[in-house]
């Protein structure tokens, strides 16, 4: 067992070093190697590593004590950094005072609020819900920062002692800021170590990880322990955010993106080992700085050194030993029955949707606001963009909704599909290539899933995130992948059945048809043996394996199917937009928004894809209102909703994990003439809810509060537990 683990680690390390050597030889920049340049790179690398170590330790502390992997760790850092900017740069507070207020007052408070209001309820939630809620929190915090402080305004934070030189260590110099950063990181690590190992509350924090119930039986307060963990995690995030702010371009998504480095460092310690996580962070810092110093990747790979973290994450995941199938984790008692749409119901629903779409685009269904001549153009444009997102969202239904595996990289797969299509179809826009695009994307999905499918679901989520960022940094910016064109379209209009879909209305009908076919195809897939098998695997992996379903293989297949669907959807995404920009369209946050929206909508039901029109619809509506003038506050509200909505909706999954469309379906189905079962269920529920009437209890009226107190006193019932004196003679 141990030998197997060591061997996989060694093999991975050797392969990684070999690849790194080859890359280094080919990209050597020719910077003269002197003690000074070398030490300089080392110092900066260590400083960066120390900063990432703060993020990573915050993650690990929260994950081990509460079981929630906090994707919002970076966002807390962003919030902290901006708040610090507000106090220090904008209001001119003394740096120390601002630092104190943000790190020791604001951050712990934020952490405790997060825990009490949201995260505490996630402890026993399914992984998908945990991930959606914390990622939702991340997106929400980032967009909140963007709305409070306009993200497009250039800002900077002064480094500490920025004008006073630095400290000479050997031939190279370390600026005071970096020196302080490094010292702070060391002090934080020492304090954390002391807290966790030398204090009772720290012991309790580690005890809660082992056995929460037993910790309570000992008398420790598990809720307080988790709040403390969140407070610490939040403080570390904020501190890291403030200290790193002067090193990077100061904008929310840039500051947030570094969180994946913290994930990689945490994964280096198998998400639970603090010292290893710190080592991982330092290693990453050194690697990053030395690559930047010595290697030159050319313009096409100008951001490649940023891709080191996703690559390390990939390597760690490959090296980890296979996880055992867990038994006894099945979520008990669902409150409500589920009934899946069958083939003819699906046909009716899809037909109705298509009919609406045709009428809408023709202007026959106008809701009183729709005027195809006056503003049909812009609205159809938004609708087309929305439908493209909805198509990408559909690809997540089998994966997240049925198999319970998470993919944060739908846009990376979609972009890859678009790229393949561009290479296959070229300028012709020939739509017959689309199925081939799907076939080519499938192995890519399998490749991403393969190393992580052996592990717990969280690693697959991290892996997909690393993949998304790796693609955005290394693959898509390459000139050859998606050539930059000055004017005009990179992607020609699709041509199918001899028709070139180059007007908005035609395109809208095409998109709707594809969407409807997609939804219907998924309905059929879910009712097939494969759909059942995937849902069975989601229900219990151990049981699925014992009926003969190979779990790892099945996960990889679902991932491949999802990647294939996303790739094909990507063709429509690219052709409707005409151009894709590596810098903007593949931003991690955009991908998150798609995942969050469809998850909050109810990802196990294909029709939930329609909810992805949320953002474009609200944007379109807000533009429309702006055109008419006079409703400034409404425009404002809509704009805020567009920005904050997806995150908020996902956070709402704490309370409604099944998604909005599930509840809507329950409301809607009793109306359908053939659904007598739904009507019966609602009736049975209402019968249960009815409270016993006063008469049935033999009373004429309810007790008044005074009477209740009097009865309690009579019965000797007090609400305080007071141990009598004399139990423990030795207790002084």
């Amino acid at each position, binding site marked *: 067992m141990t030998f197997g683990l060591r061997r996989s680690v060694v093999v991975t390390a050797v392969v990684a070093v070999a690849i790194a050597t080859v890359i280094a030889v080919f990209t050597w920049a020719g910077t003269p190697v002197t003690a000074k340049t070398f030490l300089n790179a080392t110092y900066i690398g260590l400083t960066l590593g120390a900063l990432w170590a703060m993020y990573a330790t915050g993650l690990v502390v929260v994950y081990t004590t509460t079981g929630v992997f906090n994707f919002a760790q970076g966002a807390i850092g962003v919030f902290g950094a901006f708040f610090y900017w507000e106090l220090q740069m904008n209001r001119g507070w003394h740096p120390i005072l601002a630092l104190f207020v943000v790190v020791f007052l604001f951050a712990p408070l934020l952490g405790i609020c997060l825990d009490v209001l949201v995260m505490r309820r996630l402890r026993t939630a399914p992984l998908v819900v945990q991930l959606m809620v914390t990622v939702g929190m991340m997106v929400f915090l980032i967009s909140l920062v963007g709305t409070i402080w306009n993200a497009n305004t250039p800002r900077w934070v002064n480094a500490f002692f920025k004008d006073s030189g630095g400290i000479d260590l050997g031939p190279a110099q370390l600026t005071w800021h970096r020196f302080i950063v490094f010292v702070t990181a060391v002090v934080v690590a020492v304090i954390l170590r002391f807290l966790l190992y030398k204090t009772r509350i720290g012991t309790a924090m580690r005890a809660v990880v082992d056995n929460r119930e037993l910790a309570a039986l000992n008398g420790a307060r598990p809720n307080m322990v988790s709040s403390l963990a969140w407070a610490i995690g939040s403080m570390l995030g904020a501190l890291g955010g403030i200290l790193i702010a002067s090193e990077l371009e100061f904008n929310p998504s840039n500051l947030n993106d570094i969180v994946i480095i913290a994930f990689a460092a945490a994964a280096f310690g198998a998400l639970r080992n603090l010292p290893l996580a710190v080592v991982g962070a330092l290693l990453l810092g050194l690697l990053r700085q030395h690559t930047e110093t010595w290697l030159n990747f050319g313009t096409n790979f100008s951001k490649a050194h940023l891709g080191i973290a996703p690559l390390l994450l990939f390597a760690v995941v490959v090296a980890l030993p296979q996880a055992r199938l867990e038994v006894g984790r099945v979520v008990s008692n669902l409150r409500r029955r589920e009934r899946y749409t069958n083939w003819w119901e699906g046909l009716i629903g899809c037909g109705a949707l298509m009919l609406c779409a045709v009428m809408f685009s023709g202007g026959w269904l106008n809701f009183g606001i729709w005027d195809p001549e006056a503003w049909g153009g812009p609205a159809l444009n938004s609708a087309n963009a929305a439908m493209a997102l909805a198509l990408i969202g559909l690809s997540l239904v089998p994966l997240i909704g049925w198999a319970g595996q998470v993919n944060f990289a739908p846009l990376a797969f979609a972009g890859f599909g678009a790229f393949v299509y561009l290479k296959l179809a070229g300028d012709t826009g020939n739509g017959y290539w689309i199925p081939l695009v799907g076939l080519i994307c499938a192995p890519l999905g399998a490749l991403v899933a393969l190393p992580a499918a052996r592990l717990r679901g969280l690693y697959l989520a991290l892996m997909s995130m690393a993949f998304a960022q790796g693609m955005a940094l290394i693959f898509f910016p390459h000139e050859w992948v998606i050539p930059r064109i000055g004017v005009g379209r990179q992607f020609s209009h699709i041509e199918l059945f001899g028709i070139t879909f180059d007007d908005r209305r035609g395109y809208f009908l095409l998109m709707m048809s594809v969407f409807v076919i997609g939804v219907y195809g998924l309905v059929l897939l879910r009712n097939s043996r494969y759909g059942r098998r995937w849902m069975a695997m989601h229900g219990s992996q151990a049981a699925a*394996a014992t009926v003969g379903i190979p779990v790892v293989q099945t996960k990889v297949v679902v991932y491949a199917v999802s990647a294939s669907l996303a790739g094909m959807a990507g063709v429509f995404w690219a052709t409707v937009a005409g151009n894709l920009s590596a810098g903007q369209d593949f931003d991690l946050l955009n991908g998150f928004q798609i995942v969050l929206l469809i998850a909050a909508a109810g990802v196990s039901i294909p029709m939930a894809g329609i909810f992805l029109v949320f953002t474009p619809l609200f944007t379109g509506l807000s533009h429309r209102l702006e055109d008419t003038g006079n409703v400034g506050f409404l425009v404002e509200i809509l704009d805020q909703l567009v920005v904050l909505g997806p995150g908020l909706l996902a956070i709402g999954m704490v309370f409604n994990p099944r998604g909005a469309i599930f509840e809507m379906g329950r409301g809607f189905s009793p109306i359908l003439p053939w659904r007598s079962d739904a009507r019966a269920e609602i009736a049975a529920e209402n019968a249960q809810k009815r409270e016993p009437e006063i008469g049935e209890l033999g009373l004429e009226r309810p007790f008044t509060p005074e009477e209740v107190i009097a009865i309690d006193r009579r019965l000797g019932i007090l609400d305080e537990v007071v141990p009598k004196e004399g139990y423990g003679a030795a207790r002084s």
Partner: protein
Amino acid sequence: MALLEAEQVVMRFGGVVALDNASVDVDPGEVTGLIGPNGAGKTTLFNVVTGLLPPTSGTVKFDGVDITRAGVSRRSQMGIARTFQKLEAFNTLSAFDNVRVAVEKNHRAKWKHQRVNDVAHGMLGKVGLDDVADVTVGTLPTGSARLVELARALACRPRVLLLDEPSSGLNEEETTAIGQLLLGLVADKDNDLAVLLVEHDMSFVMGVCARIHVLDFGKIIAVGTPIEVQADTAVRAAYLGSDEFRGAYVGVDE
């Protein structure tokens, strides 16, 4: 040669030895019991046999083939099916679909839809769940959900069926019905089925088992017919605590 043999299985968790050279063999055509006090290692042995836990040492043989290193789904395809002590149903699927998943995976691929459905309905019927076939399993009472698990295991066309406390959550009549079902299944020569049963309801165990293995501290302390096992001093000691301390035996006076 027995159909399923676990030989000298050792399973250690940290400092705790859950199985200590435990050997169990199961023959077709009969129900074999595996009993023992709480924490004796019964479920651990099931997990080792089905591949959910790799044993520290020892071998598991099925039909003479060493399967100690085979994966869980591979063993299932060879004919080892099981139920779980703590419910492991496919919660979001209906009772019928729970069984259908197993039928689809374990019968011929070219089977028509109708035939799969017939077999699945037949399995549900055997455990008496016809009327809840379309109900989501997650909303069923625990007892019924356990029966769904049993039907699912039967649908795997097992040659060895491992049942972990099938009677828990069931009332007396249901338990009796399950006992009858098991006896019927193993008596049918066409099935050629072997059953290994972990159970705490002793009247159930004594009623259906031809042979019983008794596990205590991870060791097999007795093997024999129900009558032999009931009379065994070591077994009584295991269940009632040892006679090495604090007074004499209680209830060995027959």
